[in-house]
């Protein structure tokens, strides 16, 4: 790992406009903050996982890194280059080195293009169509373990697992250094899920890729991620080394998420932290610590004061009353 | 009326006002851009340049364009659509005199299309692939395709001229309802028949789609009767697109009504305009266009409000 991390994100905020067009014309930039002051770094060859409930801002964050979503404030540094404020044209080469994989395996493939054209697309977009595209397509298909004759099929003729592999092949077409994988196993059966994760792991080992993976499956995180971050209402509430966080979560929300993970063992006795109520809306964020409305350990202080960042071991978190190592939730991890 | 509904209605009305102003702006632009000067059109080819100039001044056409527009817009707002060239009566009065006849005709057309179209569509959807479905399928396409004025001419030829079952021309004796209704049958059928087919198809399609929805499966799984599922769970949703489309349909029926009035020599806006064209009575033509446009826009507003009442999702997603 070189001295400078491959990707460093610092205090990034992303806002979505809301309200009618008339009020926005009136010059009042109301909006909701979907990503709210996120900072992290990602080293070369490292796998970093983002976890959190739906609507916590995971996908928005990944799209922001790729330049699909404008940054309101903050900075993103990728491979020695600042990304915030780049034009579409300047962003283009970056996107070749930092491709994205999308949730819906079939839906993320253009329905009227054959697999051949889909796989050739990255080369065409990046002005590399002088290469022998047929050979490139064959190489990519082999790389992801798909038969050559699949090249003339259309997305709707592929199974979920096959479409996912085509998605992976497209992502690695231009020898990237970082892959942003948004729920790469969503909607896949467990037996196929393993294949896709193994493929990603292989590619990481062979090509030295870094991977940013978004998933809600914590078991997947434990299997493939080196480090992880837990998002809640657009913020990182805790981030750290995966093994340590599974062993000893310090933020009550992390502990609750980890415990809310049914395990395939009927004899397991669960020490579950059941969270009351539902996730607050981004439009009306709670005061103080934003998790206090659902936190089992909330104190009066939590409702009034924003918690400061704390470092415990390798974990960084924002909480007034972090859990000790012997937290009850620790028993939930295997 | 709930406050939410009130707000929605108000917003929808406001949008209607904006659209009408925009349409007026476009109308004005078209009048201005089209080669051909309203004054010379009104006076005909044998007018001397001096006569044209005089009329131009009288109509305000010699003023700068923005002044003309302000004038045009301002007087329209006051209900002043100009005066008829020949009789000197206000255009609005002349148009309004004829409007009820046209509205009656459109009302007749809507009655045909709703009273026949909705039940036919329902029947076709419920017994999908059955006899009714197939007959309705072919017939509805056929009646949609054939232009209404052709229907008008042929029905006049067959039922009035050849068979003499129904009266051929006029709107019936004033004050005699049965005579008026008798005179309404053929023209309103010509106006409405295409829409019978259109609505039948529409109801059928959206009914089929709704019946496939998962909440219908839920209702079945709770053992609700087929009758209740069809008529109060599915039809309520399936009818929604029909309401919107009927709003638009009224605009198209207005077009058909123009032809029906001319073919059946019925009083009404269409006949008024047609006769105005032949004598180059130009303010009547634009005045009638403006009145019918406003009518059409606000009928659509009404349709949207009705949808809002029927479907709470629309209300809250608006804006």
């Amino acid at each position, binding site marked *: 790992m070189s001295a400078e991390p491959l990707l460093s994100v610092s205090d990034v905020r992303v806002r979505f406009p809301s309200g009618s067009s008339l009020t926005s014309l009136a010059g009042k930039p109301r909006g909701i903050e979907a990503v709210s002051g996120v900072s992290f770094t990602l080293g070369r060859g490292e796998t970093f996982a983002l976890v959190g409930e*739906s609507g916590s801002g995971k996908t928005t964050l990944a799209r922001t890194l790729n330049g699909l979503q404008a940054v309101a404030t903050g900075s993103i540094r990728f491979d020695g280059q600042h990304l915030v404020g780049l034009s579409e044209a300047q962003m283009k080469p970056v996107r070749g080195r930092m491709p994205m994989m999308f949730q819906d395996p079939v839906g993320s493939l253009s329905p009227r293009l054959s697999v051949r054209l889909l796989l050739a697309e990255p080369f065409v977009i990046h002005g590399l169509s002088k290469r022998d595209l047929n050979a490139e397509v064959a190489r990519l298909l082999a790389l992801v373990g798909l038969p050559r004759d699949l090249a003339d099929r259309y997305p709707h003729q592929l199974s979920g697992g096959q479409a996912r592999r085509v998605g992976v092949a497209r992502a690695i077409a231009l020898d990237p250094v970082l892959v942003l994988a948004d729920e790469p196993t969503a909607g896949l059966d467990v037996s196929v899920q393993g294949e896709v994760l193994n493929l990603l792991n292989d590619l990481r080992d062979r090509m030295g890729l870094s991977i940013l993976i978004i998933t809600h499956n914590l078991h997947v995180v434990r299997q493939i991620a080196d480090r992880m971050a837990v998002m809640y209402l657009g913020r990182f509430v805790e981030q750290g080394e995966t093994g340590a966080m599974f062993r000893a979560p310090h933020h009550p929300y992390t502990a609750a998420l980890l415990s809310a993970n049914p395990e395939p063992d*009927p004899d397991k006795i669960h020490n579950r932290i059941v969270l009351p109520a539902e996730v607050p809306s981004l439009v009306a964020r709670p005061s103080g610590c934003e998790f206090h409305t659902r936190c089992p350990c909330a104190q009066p202080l939590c409702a009034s004061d924003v918690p400061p960042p704390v470092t415990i071991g390798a974990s960084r978190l924002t909480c007034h009353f972090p859990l000790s190592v012997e937290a009850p939730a620790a028993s939930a991890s295997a | 009326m709930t406050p939410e509904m009130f707000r929605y209605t108000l917003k929808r009305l406001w949008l209607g006002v904006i659209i009408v102003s925009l349409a007026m702006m476009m109308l004005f632009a078209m009048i201005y851009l089209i080669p051909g000067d309203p004054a010379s059109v009104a006076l005909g080819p044998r007018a001397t340049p001096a006569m044209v100039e005089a009329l131009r001044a009288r109509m305000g056409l010699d003023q700068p364009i923005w002044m003309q527009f302000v004038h045009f817009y301002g007087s329209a707002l006051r209900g002043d659509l100009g005066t008829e060239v020949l009789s000197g009566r206000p255009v609005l009065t002349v148009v309004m005199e004829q409007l009820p006849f046209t509205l009656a005709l459109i009302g007749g057309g809507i009655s045909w299309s709703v009273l026949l179209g909705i039940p036919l569509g329902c029947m076709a959807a419920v017994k999908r692939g059955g006899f009714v479905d197939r007959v309705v399928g072919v017939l509805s396409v056929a009646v949609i395709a054939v232009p209404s004025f052709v229907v008008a001419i042929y029905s006049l030829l067959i039922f009035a001229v050849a068979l003499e079952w129904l009266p051929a021309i006029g709107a019936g004796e004033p004050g005699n309802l049965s005579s008026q209704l008798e005179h309404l049958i053929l023209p309103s059928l010509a106006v409405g028949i295409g829409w019978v087919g259109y609505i039948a198809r529409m109801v059928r399609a959206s009914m089929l789609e709704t019946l496939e929805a998962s*909440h219908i499966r*839920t209702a079945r799984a709770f053992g609700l009767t087929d009758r209740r599922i069809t008529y109060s769970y599915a039809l309520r949703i399936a009818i929604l697109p029909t309401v919107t489309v009927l709003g638009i349909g009224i605009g198209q029926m207005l077009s058909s009504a123009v032809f029906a009035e001319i073919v059946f020599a019925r009083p009404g806006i269409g006949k008024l305009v047609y006769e105005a064209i032949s004598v180059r009575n130009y303010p009547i033509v634009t005045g009638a266009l403006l009145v019918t446009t406003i009518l059409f826009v606000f009928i659509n507003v009404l349709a949207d409000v009705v949808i809002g009442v029927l479907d709470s999702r629309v209300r809250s997603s608006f804006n």
Partner: protein
Amino acid sequence: MTLLSVKDLSVAFHTEGGRLEALKRVNLTVPANRIVGVVGESGCGKSTLINAILGLLADSGEVTSGEILFEGDKDLTRLGSDQMRALRGQKIATVFQDPMGALNPVLSVGRQMRDIQYRSGLSRQQKNERSIDMLRKVRIPDPERRLVQFPHEFSGGMKQRIAIAMALMMEPALLIADEPTTALDATLEVATIELLKDLQRDIGCSVLFISHHLGVIAELCNEMVVMYAGEVVERGTTHEIFHNARHPYTRKLLACDPARLSRREPRLPTIAGTLPDLRNRPQGCIFQPRCELADEVCRMAPPDAAFEGSHVARCWHAEATMAGVSP
């Protein structure tokens, strides 16, 4: 006592590409007051099974053999549509997967809850009171006010809880839950499972719980059924199957779940091969083309090998798997 027993049920669909055998000789029982899980990957026939039980198979589908006995004597495959409808919602209630689409979007929640009580003979007021009670039971805050609201005014988790409230309102003998937690976040998922457990205990009904999530099945169910390509390959108590799986498919399926791995593995286990084409089933054992233990004998239809208790596996080598490697 057995509440529901499915015996040798086969269901076929007529499709453009030919006859598709969606279910083949399916056997399972749901004892009274128990929760039975059905687990399997996509295309295994879970939904067809539910639709067959509810009598809601599509027009192109047909029960070709077998019976579905409910409360001992009623064969659901032979009941008329009126008799079947009398059972649905009253004796057999269902919660479906999609919480967003499960409720009618243009009718208020209260109206929909009243409508399903149409056979109760209660007054409108009484029906509303019962609805409010049920909403309270599924922990919907402020149920009186909520009753007049429309589905789009509720969150996904709340909608699913309303669906559960509706299903349990008539105190059915059997609740069929078709992946009711799949569309929910993990925190909501466990809350919903806890809720289902509590309500099942209160009402004393049986539950047939369909899921592809092994963890949820393990936590919630007393017994379970493993399906593969339209067949029940193994069934037994949850304990037996998670600890002593006999069918090679079950063992593979369990091995694939990353949650079962105690350590971080460089390679996650997978099942080689793909699901067979149900229009053209392989000869003999359905899993044989993908099975490492397959041999000549597997080309013949395998027996339902019975073990201690209710444990059954449809495999020639069920004994051998037992002796083989542990999962």
